[in-house]
């Protein structure tokens, strides 16, 4: 049995779930209009992929995600670094962070819509808001968690404060920063889809809701499948980046 390998088993379990799904539908245990079987979703999926009609909404949504995510990472790392290295900055910003962070970001969408309307600006802002905090918190913890021996070594070797931050604190905190960035990526995807569903006129989230409104259930599920693949790919890509950027993580 072990010949399959870990990845092989993962694939197998997905196939088993799909099979069960198909069987449950065929056995008439669910209302087919609410949960169509994979065999009906697949042709709809194929149609979307083959016609290339998936490219525009995908590009839209990913574009928003990317812009908002980049803003969040830059801001999150900068603020996390600042708060970690300066007690003054920490004292100043920490209460603010602790008030805003626990607010479920989807709850802010209606407010943002009032300020920013329903276009790209709102979506990007929502992604940025959601993605900011995991990066910030993880950067902060990463910075604070730098081994004191490393910091003292920097001092005894005569490194300047700036060099210490640049050459020792940042690289040492990098594993935690990347973890935060990975979490943020998932959260950003959730928020952009949600924002598109609640108050937008384009993108994957909007499309899924629209298909539901016109009861095109199978294409709707096909798009959900596409979303699942997108989410998975983003994660895999990120892990590849992580492995290359912090190879010493496991050592």
């Amino acid at each position, binding site marked *: 049995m072990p010949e399959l390998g870990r990845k092989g088993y993962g694939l197998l379990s997905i196939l088993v779930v799909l099979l069960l799904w198909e069987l449950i539908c065929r056995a008439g245990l669910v209302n087919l209009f609410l949960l169509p079987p994979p065999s009906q979703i697949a042709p709809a999926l194929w149609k979307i992929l083959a016609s290339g009609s998936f490219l525009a909404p995908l590009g839209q949504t990913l574009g928003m995600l990317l812009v908002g995510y980049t803003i969040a990472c830059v801001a999150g790392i900068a603020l996390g670094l600042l708060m970690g290295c300066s007690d003054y900055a920490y004292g100043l910003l920490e209460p603010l962070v602790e008030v805003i962070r626990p607010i479920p970001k989807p709850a802010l969408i209606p407010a943002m819509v009032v300020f920013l309307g329903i276009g790209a600006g709102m979506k990007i802002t929502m992604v940025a808001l959601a993605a900011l905090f995991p990066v910030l918190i993880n950067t902060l913890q990463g910075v604070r968690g730098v081994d004191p021996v490393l910091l*003292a070594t920097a001092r005894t*070797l005569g490194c300047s404060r700036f060099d210490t931050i640049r050459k020792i604190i940042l690289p*040492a905190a990098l594993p935690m920063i990347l973890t935060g960035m990975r979490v943020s990526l998932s959260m950003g995807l959730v928020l952009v889809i949600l924002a598109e569903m609640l108050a937008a006129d384009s993108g994957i989230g909007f499309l899924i809701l629209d298909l539901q409104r016109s009861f095109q259930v199978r294409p709707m599920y096909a798009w959900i499948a596409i979303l699942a693949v997108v989410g998975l790919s983003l994660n895999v890509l990120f892990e590849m980046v992580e492995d290359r950027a912090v190879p010493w993580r496991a050592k």
Partner: protein
Amino acid sequence: MNEAAPYLTIRDVNKVYGGQHGEATTALQSISFEVKQGEFVAILGPSGCGKSTLLQIVAGLIDATAGEVALNGKPVTAPPPEMVYLFQQYSKSLLPWRTVEQNVALVFESKGMKKRDIAERCGEYLAMVGLASFRKHYPWQLSGGMQQRVAIARALAAQPRVLLLDEPFSAVDALTRIELQSLVLDLWTKHGLTILLITHDVDEAVFMADRIAVLSSRPSTVEMMVSTDLPRPRDAMATRELPRFLQLRHELVTHLLHRQNAGRVDA
């Protein structure tokens, strides 16, 4: 070398922890001794007596509660460029994302040197510790002893006058320890360094040092300063068999055992 003027003075250094929220503990109680330039002084004492604390105060890494450390007449309030402190946890002091060579290069980087020159200098220092062929390796690929050498090479690259070694050899095996001890003595002679070495190993203290400061347990004081009076250069086998070596060793071990037992009886 000026025999008379002390190079490094430690006067009435006192370190107290706590006191604000709980009970204050005195780690160091009025430590005083002097070190001449070019001397090799070992600091010997039981675990937990505050040897590392003392050495870090000398290094300027932490502040004393009272007392003063002066290097060449100037008080030490922050890590001076002439001094480098080497941590007991040497593997933690190496940057794991940099190669061996890049770790040493850290010292040269903000000096505006060309990349080629930096590489050359790093090569020199690594050669001094016998690691020239490992420059492209990462610290986690090296054994403990080799990692210690990297730390030493890096410290030397900073061109210090004083090296402060905190139990550098306690975590390596016996044979590696002998090799490293010889290496350190070698470098000490070659570069005219002043070295303070913390150890709990009597053999090591006697073998390596000119003088030994024996510390008591907390609150620590200098119980005695002993001159080793052994000929240099020291030899790993021969020196250890000299009568003076054995006698000193005997005295010190007896003293330490006695104090330990006395401590037990009193407690």
